[in-house]
Structure formats: structure tokens, C-alpha cells
């Protein structure tokens, strides 16, 4: 029984944590690579429509976003609850889109400018009238590559 009658202080061995930083760094690099900073604070609510034939939007630096939807709760008093356009951090009118696109294009590198894509994040309940206006404005601004942002529809759903 000598095995069990050992006397004296038994010390808990120290856990070796020297590899912990490495673990954390691995995680860190993962998030650093996959991260895209959120550039704007959204002022409109939108739920993009769903579809099946979607293409991934690549090269985030070439993409300009246009948001359309109902203003958030806190802006309703001023802006009403009609669908509004948001460019960057503020509400905008259709007439301002052309300037916005020109400005965004100017901030890109010259060789990237032909590949500029405009992603339209539009709420599914929006009426087409405002969408058509935006499309016309984009045509005038020669931003012809557009992407109707949508979520993938689950399989089986028609």
C-alpha cells in the first residue's frame, strides 16, 4: 500500500503555457485575413432579397455600395418611413448618386477604375420606382457593372 500512503505536500504541476501565444496568434492571423472593416454605419434597414443564381462579389476594394431601405427607428421622425438612399454615412437623393460615383471612382487607382462594381443593397420590399431611378443615375455616371445584392435561397425553396 506504499503507493497510497505517500506523505507530504503534493504539488500540482504547472501547466506549460508557453505555446499559448502561438495558439492565439494563429487565431489572430485567421481573423486578420478574413476581416473586412465595416466602413459605414447603416442608417437604413434592409433585408436583401433571395435568389439562387448568385455570384460572389470579389475584390472588396473595387466595390461601391448603395443602400436603400427604410430609415432606422431613430431617423423616422425626420426622414419619414419611405424608402431612402444611403451613400456613405448619410441619406442622399437620387441626384447625388452621380457625384458620389464620380468621387468614389476618383479615389480608386486608375487601372482599377474600369472594374468598378456598384453593389446595390436594396430592401426586398422597396418599390421598383426608386430602383429604376438609381439605375438611370448609375448609367449616367457610367457605373455599368452592378450587382443586386441577395442572399442564397435555401434548397427546395422555389
Amino acid at each position: 500500500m506504499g503507493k497510497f500512503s505517500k506523505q507530504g505536500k503534493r504539488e500540482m504541476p504547472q501547466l506549460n503555457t508557453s505555446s499559448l501565444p502561438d495558439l492565439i496568434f494563429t487565431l489572430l492571423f485567421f481573423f486578420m485575413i478574413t476581416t473586412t472593416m465595416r466602413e459605414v454605419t447603416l442608417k437604413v434597414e434592409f433585408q436583401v432579397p433571395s435568389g439562387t443564381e448568385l455570384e460572389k462579389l470579389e475584390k472588396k476594394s473595387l466595390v461601391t455600395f448603395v443602400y436603400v431601405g427604410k430609415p432606422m427607428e431613430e431617423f423616422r421622425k425626420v426622414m419619414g418611413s419611405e424608402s431612402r438612399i444611403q451613400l456613405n454615412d448619410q441619406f442622399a437623393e437620387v441626384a447625388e448618386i452621380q457625384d458620389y460615383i464620380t468621387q468614389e471612382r476618383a479615389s480608386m487607382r486608375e487601372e482599377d477604375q474600369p472594374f468598378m462594381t456598384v453593389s446595390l443593397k436594396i430592401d426586398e420590399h422597396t418599390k421598383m420606382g426608386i430602383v429604376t431611378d438609381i439605375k438611370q443615375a448609375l448609367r449616367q455616371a457610367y457605373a455599368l457593372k452592378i450587382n443586386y445584392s441577395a442572399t442564397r435561397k435555401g434548397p427546395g425553396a422555389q
Partner: protein
Amino acid sequence: MAKGNRKVPDINSSSTADIAFLLLIFFLITTSMDTDSGLARQLPPPPEPDQEEQDIDIKERNILIVLLNAQNQLMVGGELLDITQLNERAKEFIQNPQDKATLPEKTEIEVPYFGKVVTTANHVISLMNDRGTSYQAYIDVQNELVRAYNELRDDIALSKWHVRYEELNEDQKSAIREIYPQRISEAEPRNYGGKK
């Protein structure tokens, strides 16, 4: 005089983990993992200001008019359709398998890999909508039309190379795109003329 054998003191690295944690938490918070996806489309360039309004001459049989009204009802080529039927209807229009006189005329073109192919190269699907149409209905229609094209392209890719269109290389893809060019025209609002 100190004798040799001086040890370099270890740098205490117990706080590296803390620093890394701090950075990790920062990126965790700022990250948004959602990959953006959507329907890619190409808009036509704006009309020249001095350009006269001219109707581009397209034979009637080559146009499929898809109308979407404010009640989200769909009319395709003069008849009321359900959205689920649109895919079949569009495919029939693009292919014209029986060479009907009411569907697009066929022309013979030379395509790499395939040789001479008879296609409906001049067909146009014209999509028109009301200002009151809901965006979801519009996207549904766009989606069905794109699906019709994708399925046709997949079919021909499978029969020729036994792989799906997505997996082909760029040359093969462009050959197939020549056979089934995506020709969806979005008419200008209220201009219900047959503008391309």
C-alpha cells in the same frame, strides 16, 4: 571581474499572450464574415444627348417581352404566367428547339471547340417593370432568367465535356457564351417602345 559563463537573462514572455489576445479581440469585433453575393448585371451605357430616339430594328419573333406590373403579376410574350413557369418558357425561347416561326430565328455561327453551331444569336429578352413593382419580384424574375441561361450552359457543357459550366476554363466558357449569349435588356422606364 565577472567570470565567464554569464547567462543571458530570459525575456519574460508571459504577456505576449495578453497582447495577442487584445489584438484578437479587436479583430473579432470588427470582423464581418458575410461574403457578399448577388446577381451581377451589366447596364447599357447612357444614350448620347444628341442621339435621336431611334427604334432599333429587332424582328418581333426575336423579342420575348417580360412584363411585371405593380401587382407583381407576370406577363411573358402576351400571356399571364406564374413565376415557376418562366424558366421553361425562357429556355424554349432561347433554344427554339422545334424551329418554330414564332420563336427567334436561327443563325449558323462558327464557334471554337464546337465548329458550326445553329443558335438564336439575335434573341433579346426584354424585361419591363412598373414603378410599383416590388424589388423581390423583380429579382425573382431576373433570377429565373439567369437560371434558364445557366441551365442551358450547364447542359451543353455536360454533353460536351462532362463537367459543369462553372468548372470549364476561360476559353471553353467563352465558346459556350457565344452559343448562349445572355441577352437580357432592361428597358428604360415608361419607354415601352422596343428599345434595346
